[in-house]
């Protein structure tokens, strides 16, 4: 029963994609929306059915053998266990709410059919990613979500900047994907299978803990995870990806796709435990990313870019959790983050549409009275983001991460996490104050048109708001038995101390934010206006200049190379042969000048040469 429900929840979005893609332009916006939203709603129901039918044991279903040559026998097969069920719940559940909201957000846009075709293909690919029982099929989902992300970032295709953002997202993540592919090659050659269960089973027998090959394999897979999950140094695509419609940012670039890297590492935990150094590196990269993004979020003016950097920062927390071996905590934070970040993005979307596509913080402001629903969404989502103690979902999951970090004795990671909490408080308060308080910065902000539709506008926001409170944290089933014991299970003292510390960090962040943005507003403005303050602002605004690094380190050299080779110099080289033939031809043509004297002369010369050579060879012979 469970497998039927699972397959069904995959097939429904796929079927609707096909229906939408091949409809030509026959389907109106209404029908497209109905098919697009309805199919994901049904998929969510199917997932609920699978959850109800779940007996506690994992189940597999092999649909067919994809390729079979010698040992190489990847299948099209799905495995359902608790981890994939949690992911399915997020993908179809949160996905459905976002689809529903999109019906409001996208109303009146051209190309609705294309929008839902891509969105549903995304849901399908993402489901395959989390359900695949072997790495090659996982890779299918992995690349599929990348392609859909490309199609949706570039949804407003008339603006060239959007297309280049889509292009950048695809290429940067593709660089990560190549590492993942190489990891698959290595795993297949060494272990002889791509089946995830078998790989995890066999790896400890083939590789000693800490062996070079295990380290390389884990590193390669980490490379793939970094690209998809926008962690340093492959993170530069995520802020630009905000060019897509806001529901896309909510679904793909906050709740699901960008957390695929976390899922991948959690799924292959056995492999990473064989490479403790790489696992630590995961944590360090997470810590670096969370700080880097936290600082960058402070200096953004576009509300979606603030949210993008905050996403990157929160995924950094998940990587920290993975890095200390607390896989359960990472997935816990993944879940709550999916709820509250989707809420924040949808609320942002509500603001953006109400203010006629205005998303610059400077041009918004003072909206709290006119847009109460979005304001409430931001307050609840923001509370979860800063991990407001006890009432918010984010508190429980972030606390778990910090506690595991402490229990694992990683002081550096813990300090980064606490500092990150302060930063989160700062940028969240700045964001909410910038949108909803102070003076309206433009005509659109003075006269917003609030969303009124109960079903497509209010409902998704309300449900996500409820999920972003402690109720959402309670919903998380816990995956402890799937993973090896987390460090926190052995330790039992200090948890209270940590909670005090974490609460302190949150309050410090909020208090600092209140003081800075309410009391010292003018002073802050004057600081970033000129001198060192302005340079600092630019540096943070450009997120530490990684883009420039890539531009001058990779993109420009590549363009020079393309430009330099454009003439196809190897081909030119082959043309030399033709040139030689032509020169030879010209030379020989000269000899045919029509004068008998020349011909006779040449003839005599030739005869003499032949005779001399004959005499010489004869002479040599005798």
């Amino acid at each position: 029963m469970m497998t039927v429900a699972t397959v069904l929840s995959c097939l429904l979005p796929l079927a609707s994609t096909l229906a939408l893609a091949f409809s030509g332009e026959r389907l109106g916006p209404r029908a497209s929306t109905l098919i697009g939203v309805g199919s994901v709603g049904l998929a969510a129901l199917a997932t609920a059915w699978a959850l109800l039918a779940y007996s506690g044991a994992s189940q597999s279903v092999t649909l067919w053998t994809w390729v079979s040559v010698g040992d190489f026998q990847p299948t099209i097969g799905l495995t359902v266990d608790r981890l994939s069920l949690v992911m399915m719940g997020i993908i179809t559940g949160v996905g459905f709410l976002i689809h529903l909201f999109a019906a409001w957000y996208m109303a009146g846009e051209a190309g609705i059919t294309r929008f839902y075709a891509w969105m549903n293909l995304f849901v399908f690919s993402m489901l395959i990613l989390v359900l695949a029982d072997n790495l090659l099929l996982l890779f299918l989902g992995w690349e599929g979500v990348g392609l859909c992300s490309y199609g949706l970032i570039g949804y407003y295709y008339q603006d060239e900047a959007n297309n280049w953002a889509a292009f950048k997202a695809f290429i940067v993540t593709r660089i990560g994907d190549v590492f993942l592919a190489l990891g698959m090659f290595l795993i297949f050659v060494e272990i002889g299978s791509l089946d995830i269960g078998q790989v995890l089973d066999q790896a400890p027998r083939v590789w000693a803990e800490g062996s070079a090959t295990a380290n390389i394999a884990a590193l390669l897979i980490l490379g793939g995870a970094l690209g998809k999950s926008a962690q340093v140094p492959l993170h530069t695509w995520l802020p630009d990806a905000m060019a897509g419609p806001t529901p896309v940012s909510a679904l793909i670039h906050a709740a699901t796709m960008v957390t695929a890297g976390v899922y991948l590492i959690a799924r292959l935990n056995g492999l990473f435990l064989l490479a403790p150094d790489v696992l630590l590196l995961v944590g360090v990269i997470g810590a670096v990313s969370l700080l880097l993004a936290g600082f960058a979020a402070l200096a953004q003016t576009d509300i979606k870019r603030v949210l993008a950097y905050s996403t990157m920062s929160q995924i950094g927390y998940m990587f920290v959790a993975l890095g200390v071996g607390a896989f359960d905590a990472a997935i816990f934070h993944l879940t709550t983050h999916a709820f509250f970040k989707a809420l924040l993005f949808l609320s942002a979307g509500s603001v953006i549409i109400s203010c006629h596509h205005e998303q610059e913080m400077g041009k918004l402001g003072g909206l709290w009275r006119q847009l109460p629903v979005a304001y409430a969404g931001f307050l609840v989502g923001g509370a979860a983001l800063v991990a407001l103690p006890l009432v918010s979902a984010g508190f429980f999951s972030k606390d778990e991460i910090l506690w595991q970090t402490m229990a694992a004795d990683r002081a550096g990671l813990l300090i980064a996490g606490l500092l990150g909490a302060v930063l989160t408080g700062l940028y969240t308060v700045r964001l909410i104050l910038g949108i909803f308080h102070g003076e309206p910065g433009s005509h659109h902000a003075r006269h917003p048109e609030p969303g009124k539709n109960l079903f497509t506008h209010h409902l998704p926001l309300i449900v996500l708001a409820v999920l972003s409170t402690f109720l959402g944290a309670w919903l998380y089933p816990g995956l402890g038995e799937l993973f090896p014991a987390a460090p926190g299970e052995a330790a039992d003292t200090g948890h209270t101390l940590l909670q005090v510390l974490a609460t302190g960090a949150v309050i410090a962040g909020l208090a600092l934010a209140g003081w800075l943005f309410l009391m010292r507003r003018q002073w802050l403005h004057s600081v970033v206006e000129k001198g060192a303050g302005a340079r600092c602002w630019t540096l943070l605004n450009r997120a530490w200049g990684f883009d420039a690094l890539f531009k001058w380190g990779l993109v420009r050299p590549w363009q020079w190379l393309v430009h330099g080779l454009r003439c196809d110099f190897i081909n030119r080289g082959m043309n030399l042969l033709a040139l030689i033939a032509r020169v030879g031809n010209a030379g020989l043509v000269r000899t045919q000048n029509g004068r008998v004297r020349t011909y006779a002369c040449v003839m005599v010369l030739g005869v003499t040469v032949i005779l001399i050579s004959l005499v010489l060879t004869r002479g040599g012979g005798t």
Partner: protein
Amino acid sequence: MILLWLILIPFFGGLLCWQAERWGQQAPRWIALGTMLLVLAASLVLWIGGDFSPPGVSESPWLLEWRVPWIPRFGIEIHLAMDGLSLILVALAGLLGALAVLCSWNEIVERVGFFHLNLLFIMSGVVGVFLALDLFLFFLFWEAMLVPMYFLIALWGHSGSPGQTRIRAATRFFIYTQASGLLMLVAILALVFVNYSNTGVMTFSYNALLNANVPDGLAFWLMLGFFIAFAVKLPVVPFHGWLPDAHAQAPTAGSVDLAGILLKTAAYGILRFAIPLFPEQSQAFAPVAMTLGLVGIFYGAILACGQQDIKRLIAYTSISHMGFVLIALYAGSELAMQGAIVIMVAHAFSSAGLFILSGQLYERIKTRDMRLMGGLWGRIPTLPGLTLFFVAASLGMPATANFIGEFMVLFGTFDNAPEVVIIASAGLVLAAIYSLLMMQRVHFGGEYSQGRLAGPDAREYAMMLLLIGLTLAVGLYPQPLLDTTASMVQPVVALFTDSAGLAAQAEEVE
């Protein structure tokens, strides 16, 4: 006999088309389409009825075989044979031949009869190449493919940039392939004479020459003769000079045939002749061949990014894709070699799709210059979406045949030559760059000019849907294809790896 008919049907069909022009413009088109479909149907019937399990020791490795003496004095026979690989390729040729006829339905309006005669003569030559087992006969068909292709480019082609006439492109194509064909002829003759002096029997028979005892040094040169002939056609950098011009300036049907079938004759030649005739030398040559493959992947990709002519861009991507094939053929593993065959099929679909689409685009906007395109997504219904599919296939998106092929090659090669795979994998990023750049320049961005253009009509849509269906079918369930070719590939791989083993033993003895 049926093998002979597979060659003769397109030949007579071509003559008929030529004469049928007097009945009107449509007659040659329908006759040509019918003939192509007949070839396709015949090969499909053979495929369904065929048994492709590995043959027993005493059984013939051929599904069908037909031989009659031709010039007994020199031991030349008309010896045709078909196994799984040749069957697949003949079917592919029939399919793409039909598409070539369909895609020029409105494009070609002058000398329609003669045009289809050339198309069908190409088909005849290609089928001959895939079926001929006598080396002399093989050479004959190999050369016979060129002439109609030359006419196709020279008479119905487009002019390129100023100074690049279609005649020039056609001549260049002809000289490249002709010159390399001569090298192969020399190699064939030398092989025959060495065999003659060893055994006293003058024969051009493939089976006999497989066991020819050629001295090692000479064998290497002969292998090189075969290799270069095939390398020009594949094409391998630095012998690729003919390809961009020929592709860009050929009519759509010519590009489809060139990319879809003619390039595959080269890979077929390596698989059927160069490696089995000279396994040890091929084994020794493998590092060089793989390096050339890598160079091709990168060089083709870099040049593709720099093109402004959409057909030249696609042409350079072919060089890049064929680099993977070359690596796979010399990787010495069944997985990689099977992968090479899948790439051949996949590339036939995806490049045919892209060429046909750029032909349809040309019919609408009368240019191939991407600087004059942009923003077409909003101006033409459906066509951009179709393009996106083939672009995704070309960059190796999973679920397409191209992905299966490339990844089988990479998986299969990693064991023997991990460094080659590591470098080649970077080509996957480059494939994404050039493929998406094309999308970017042609279909996205601001609209270069105004006005809505017609979407694909039923004929154009049907061709695309067929190719999409096939690409997905092979991408999701390639097993029927792999099972068909397995019994052909396994012995070649065994020869290759055995000779590696022998070489290693010899070194140990020394």
